């Protein structure tokens, strides 16, 4: 139990020891429950101006000019800027620099910005934005993948509409099909998904008196942001400072430029005044990045004994108007297209395609979420074709350590899928699965579904996944961690505190966490890709160990003992164990110069030592070597009249290596499953010629507390030797399971399942009505 004491002032309770493996409360929880945490959106510097972008409002057009005079003449308007005012390349993008800060002459999607307005207050800004008149000549657009690939399609970019085309293959698919006893096929369509974070994209920017451009932004990649801004605006990246407070959610949607370049541009034009930009919800939906819409075409064959033998698949990703990470998303989808299974012969081809739709970008699950629907539907169909139990077939083919995966890469690190499936198979929810449909009330059908999924960690080959950790002993004898990777809510900052507390043997109140500030921390990559805690955590382990060794050595000088072996770090002090003498850390700190109280160490994630003779089109990304695995189970109930589907029970078994904090682990799993349930059941961007018809929470429905059941989360006891204390990243894998597990349950209930997601009532009603439903449903 937590210790309680009457406190004269509002302050955190007596702080716990930060031990690895314990459910220590999050370091950020206290400030967040009293409303004291300052997110980027809570910054209102004195004398600020408001900035806003005028969006094109057409999905494909030639921009002949922008009439800005009327807006400029409005009292309270400070500036109206267009592409002509952008110094530098006017191009942003994480890998491919193809996205203008302000459109010059070619509008490629509805939310493309054509002008930037600066005003004294928000009301004036709103009125001025309405007065900006873009002169647009509509162009024929491309609004789906097939249209974009037609030879006569209008082209969006000089290189054509294919951003990237690639193939990953192993074995020999040409002859492999002949020996297959069962072959199943399917084509699947998935929509764009919105991240639905609650704090919209925003930030403040200001040119400081010393000429440094400082931004406080809701961002996942403060270090990379400097280079994006510098490239787009022709600035010196080292004269840009980015601060990233705790984020109000992101899930990939704040990886890459949102407000950054616009804010920086604004700040350059107002003589040192601070500028604030906040996207409203509708703008966030229209101009923000999305999970890629996708089409998947699958063919999978197995031998008589159930061994998966041959796979041929084509994955098409709609990356919308600009590349963002479209090529990399496709890469990861393709690398996972064979599922977490051994398949000897594979041919997997992928395309990332430009359209005039909203911009596809990073989102939790990053291409794998889509592919999971394809490969797991195939497994269910194969089980039916072979007359096999769905779980059994998965267990038979599950990847184990030492296997080659479907992309031909040898798994030399922890591979806990078999343990996940084994745990699931012994769980009462699986053992009692037959009771669920048998007890269905009238007019309802019930089913139980399973899915096995995985998700790579890190950037993959070609882009070192590195982090540099910094920890210092403060003058008052506490420890300060300068985090370099943003905490968008996943709790990595708290994990950092826990790591430091464990190694340095300190209580929570002795660890001070500073959120990323490029002027204080050191470059450490983005908060993404399941690599946040793994990479920075590993660097932090080294930094803490080095600092401990150093402090014990310095303490031995002060305590005049021969060598540090009898010294131990304890909360707030160093003790000489043989004599019991204590040296308070504050006193030790007082004796040391600042440079001697700091420790900085780096870590680079291991990459594959194999050089597969495939996937050559990928300059970065392919292959990955570290994966998290999961097995999910869903109980669903479908109303046969309305088609409404309810997820009633849910189990997620995860291999994320060692669990540093069981409660925070469950937080990630439950949150990912909830977001995955939204993806499975209701979330879909409705588009008409590139225009979003549901750009708000009234029409784009996120799961509420009534739509998500209690989720049982179990972890299997694997240890990842390369991870900090044996952990792996689990931020992504949890979202890949719900759609396939729920689809599997729908098929069990109805005898069939739509091949288009989300599994909305209208689609399910159509399945109920179709003839021969519910015959040979899997059990």
């Amino acid at each position: 139990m937590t210790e309680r004491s009457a406190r004269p002032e509002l302050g955190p309770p007596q702080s716990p020891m930060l031990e690895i493996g314990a459910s220590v409360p999050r370091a950020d929880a206290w400030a967040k429950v009293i409303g004291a945490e300052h997110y980027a959106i809570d910054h209102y510097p004195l004398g600020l101006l408001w900035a806003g972008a005028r969006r094109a409002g057409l999905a494909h057009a030639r921009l002949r000019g922008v009439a800005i005079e009327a807006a400029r003449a409005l009292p309270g308007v400070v500036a109206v800027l267009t592409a002509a005012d952008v110094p530098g390349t006017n191009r942003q993008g994480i890998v491919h620099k193809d996205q203008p800060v302000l459109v010059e002459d070619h509008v490629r999607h509805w939310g493309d910005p054509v002008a930037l307005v600066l005003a004294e207050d928000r009301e004036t800004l709103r009125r001025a934005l309405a007065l900006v008149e873009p002169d647009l000549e509509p162009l024929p657009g491309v609004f789906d993948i097939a249209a974009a690939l037609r030879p006569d399609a209008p082209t969006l970019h000089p290189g054509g509409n294919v951003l990237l085309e690639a193939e990953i293959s192993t074995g020999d698919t040409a002859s492999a099909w002949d020996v297959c006893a069962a072959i199943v096929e399917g084509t699947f369509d998935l929509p764009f998904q919105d991240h639905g974070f609650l704090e919209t994209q925003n930030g403040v920017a200001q040119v400081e008196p010393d000429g440094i451009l400082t931004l406080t932004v809701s961002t996942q990649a403060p270090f990379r942001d400097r280079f994006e801004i510098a490239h787009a605006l022709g600035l010196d990246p080292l004269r840009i400072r980015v601060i990233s407070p705790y984020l109000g959610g992101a899930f990939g949607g704040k990886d890459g430029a949102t407000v950054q370049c616009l804010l920086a541009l604004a700040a350059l034009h107002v003589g040192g005044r601070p500028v604030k930009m906040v996207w409203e919800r509708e703008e966030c939906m229209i101009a923000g990045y999305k999970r890629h819409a996708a089409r998947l075409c699958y063919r999978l064959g197995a031998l008589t004994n159930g061994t998966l033998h041959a796979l041929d698949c084509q994955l098409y990703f709609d990356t919308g108007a600009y590349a963002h990470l479209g090529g990399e998303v496709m890469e990861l989808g393709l690398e996972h297209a064979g599922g977490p299974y051994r398949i000897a012969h594979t041919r997997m081809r992928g395309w990332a395609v430009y359209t005039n739709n909203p911009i596809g970008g990073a989102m939790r699950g990053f291409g794998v979420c889509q592919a999971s629907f394809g490969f797991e539907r195939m497994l269910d169909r194969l089980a039916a074709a072979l007359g096999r139990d769905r779980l059994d077939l998965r267990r038979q083919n599950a990847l184990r350590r030492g296997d080659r995966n479907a992309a031909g890469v040898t798994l030399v690190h922890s591979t806990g899928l078999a343990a996940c499936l084994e745990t699931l198979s012994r769980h009462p929810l699986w053992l009692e699965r037959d009771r669920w449909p048998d007890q269905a009330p009238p007019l309802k059908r019930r089913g139980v579904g399973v899915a096995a999924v995985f998700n790579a960690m890190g950037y993959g080959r070609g882009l070192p996944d590195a982090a540099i950790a910094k920890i210092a002993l403060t003058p008052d004898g506490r420890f300060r961690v300068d985090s370099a990777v943003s905490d968008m809510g996943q709790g990595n900052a708290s994990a950092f505190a826990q790591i430091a507390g464990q190694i340095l043997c300190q209580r929570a109140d002795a660890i001070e966490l500073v959120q990323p500030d490029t002027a204080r921390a050191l470059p450490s990559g983005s908060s993404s890709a399941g690599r946040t805690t793994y990479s920075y955590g590993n660097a932090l382990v080294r930094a803490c160990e080095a600092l401990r060794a150093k402090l014990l050595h310095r303490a031995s000088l002060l305590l005049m003992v021969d060598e540090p072996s009898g010294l131990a770090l304890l909360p707030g002090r160093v003790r000489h164990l043989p004599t019991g003498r204590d040296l308070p850390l504050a006193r030790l700190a007082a004796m040391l110069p600042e440079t001697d109280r700091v420790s900085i160490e780096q870590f680079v994630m291991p990459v594959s030592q194999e050089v597969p003779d495939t996937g050559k089109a990928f300059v970065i990304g392919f292959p990955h070597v570290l994966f998290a695995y999961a097995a999910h189970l869903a109980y669903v109930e479908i109303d046969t009249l309305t088609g409404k589907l309810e997820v009633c029970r849910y189990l997620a078994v995860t291999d994320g290596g060692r669990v540093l904090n069981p409660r925070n682990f469950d937080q990630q799993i439950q949150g990912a499953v909830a977001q995955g349930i939204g993806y499975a059941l209701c979330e879909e961007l409705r588009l008409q010629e590139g225009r979003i018809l549901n750009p708000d929470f009234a029409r784009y429905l996120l799961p509420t507390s009534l739509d998500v059941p209690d989720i049982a989360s179990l972890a299997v006891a694997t240890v990842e030797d390369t991870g900090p204390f044996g952990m792996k990243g689990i931020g992504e894998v949890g979202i890949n399971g719900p759609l396939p597990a729920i689809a599997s349950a729908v098929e069990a209930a109805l005898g069939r399942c739509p091949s288009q997601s989300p599994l909305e009532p209208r689609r399910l009603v159509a399945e109920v009505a179709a003839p021969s439903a519910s015959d040979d449903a899997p059990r």
Partner: protein
Amino acid sequence: MKIHLILNGTPREMKVAPDRRVVDLLREDLGLTGVKEGCGSGECGTCTILVDGEARLSCLLLAAQLDGCRLTTIEGLAQDGRLHPVQQAFIDQGAVQCGYCTPGMILAAVDLLNRQPHPTREAIRVALSGNLCRCTGYQMIVDAVETAARRMREGEDA
């Protein structure tokens, strides 16, 4: 216009534009940035405050409507240096992730527990269904409200 209100326990008199949104008044004029805005149109619940003890959406309220009211924002919930049991339970039960929904969620829960000290999990889910959370999947939030309800009934001060 001039309005009188009790804000987080302190009587205040303010000159306001009658059509100023309450969320802007609180965040921008009064610096109470614990009040969050997620949608601006009544759909997410992040801007929830208590008006005369009842949960209301501050993005849909106008300043003029506050005249004579008693307002509680997340900043005013803790009393005498102690967290409200709902706040404490949110920490203890892991109900906080990004925390952006948290102030609104906590105030909606406080409203519920004031009306209904013995809510079932289902009743908690219904009461919070107007407050979106994208991070937690709601389970630990429901756990927290259950815990707070129990502690409040047992007279614990958490």
